[in-house]
């Protein structure tokens, strides 16, 4: 068992989940309740990673974050090294790749918060921040937990973006799904089976969490 790859995989999944919950919440709220005419265009963009081949997304991110593009060059000069083939670069890729998996359930959860609750809270003296913390968050807790579980499981199973952007560097960007690929390439089927079983177990646990949350949501 490649525990180093297991560590990288879990670290990537946890960091991506935490970042996405923070980033996706205001975005999902805006998509659910905003009135801007740009809403449809932004929704389309956030959904794009869902249908785009991961290798295509990985290729463009490799170009964008690497020193061959203008933004990548600026970024490289600013932080002193390219973000490609690093763990941080991988996190950026994972955040973009898993964005729809956070935004869609959050948006559905936020849409189900009736606006008259927020109106009433406002007339009771709660400002926008208090309305979010005291009404929206507790009312959407199952959607938030579901989005977190979905992003975590999805990031654990990532392959295309990780391979393109991370470069399969042991201890830095090599995740369990890349280990399976390498083991199969080396005809080590028993080891590949063991690693795959671990990924299946993590995915099943994640799906179980989502299922339990949905059941609780229906009961509530």
């Amino acid at each position, binding site marked *: 068992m490649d525990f180093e790859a297991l560590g990288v995989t879990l670290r990537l999944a946890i960091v991506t989940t935490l970042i996405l919950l923070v980033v996706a919440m205001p975005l999902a709220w805006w998509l659910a309740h905003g009135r801007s005419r740009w809403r449809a265009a932004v929704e389309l963009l956030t959904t794009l990673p869902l249908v785009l081949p991961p290798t295509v997304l990985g290729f463009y991110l490799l170009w964008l974050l690497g020193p061959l593009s203008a933004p990548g060059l600026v970024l490289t000069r600013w932080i002193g090294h390219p973000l490609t083939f690093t763990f941080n670069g991988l996190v950026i890729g994972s955040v973009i790749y898993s964005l729809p998996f956070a935004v869609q359930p959050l948006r559905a959860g936020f849409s189900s918060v*009736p606006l*008259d*609750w927020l*109106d*009433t*809270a*406002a*007339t*009771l*003296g*709660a*400002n926008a921040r208090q309305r979010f913390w*005291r*009404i929206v968050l*507790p*009312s959407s807790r199952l959607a938030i937990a579901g989005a977190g579980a979905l992003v975590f499981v999805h990031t654990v199973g990532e392959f295309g973006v990780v391979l393109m952007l991370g470069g399969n560097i042991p201890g830095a960007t090599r995740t369990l799904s890349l280990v399976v690929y390498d083991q199969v390439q080396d005809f080590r089927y028993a080891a590949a089976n063991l690693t795959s079983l671990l990924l299946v177990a993590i995915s099943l646990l994640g799906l179980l969490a989502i299922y339990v949350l949905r059941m609780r949501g229906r009961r509530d």
Partner: protein
Amino acid sequence: MIESRSYAAVSHRFASSNFELHLALDLIPGWNVLFGPSGSGKTTFLRAATGLLRPDSGLVRVDDEVWFDSERGIFLPPERRNSGYVAQRPALFPHLTVEENVAFGLRLTPADTSHRTAEMMDLFHCSHLASRRPDELSGGEQQRVALARAIARRPKILLLDEPFRGLDFELRDAILSDLESWVAASRTPVLAVSHDVVEICQLGAQVTRIAAGRVVDSGPAATILAPYRERILRRLES
């Protein structure tokens, strides 16, 4: 010449429906009733008074405090207006107990919050429901809690948007009598809107009849509701 300490004048046009609202009311301490058919602009007027809607122009002054003045560019958001608002649906927060709902708007010390919450639940006879969640309450109980929550902050004005809709005559009468004791003691202006003539008979006091966004007539309930006498009697008999 405006004499009362509370006054609301609202002009608003909805571009999508071409509906125009032009209403001005002096709000006296006690009951003020806005009466009119559905779609006549009653709810819009209330939402403008609470600050949930920013009207095109007008003036909202409550207890000599200006909440909205389009000429002077003043607009206080709802959270900065001390108004109590109860909508058609009680909009109780489902993740909070009755006690937590009533205490939601209070910004007092824990001891004072607890005292005020108990006082309000007592007033509306819902102390025995303190630890229950909204989905465990009947429609009448939910309305009692919504009213207790709205007046717990001791608002300068209470705005009621058909809050007794769907409740039977006796239940409505019981809740109104609880509310009446607070209104009489606090001398707070209450602006209630309704399209139900029987409900308005129960609310009484000053009635302003509106249609299509404009005032038709205004006066004591007995005068304004005189043309509806037959209908009221039929409803009461039934």
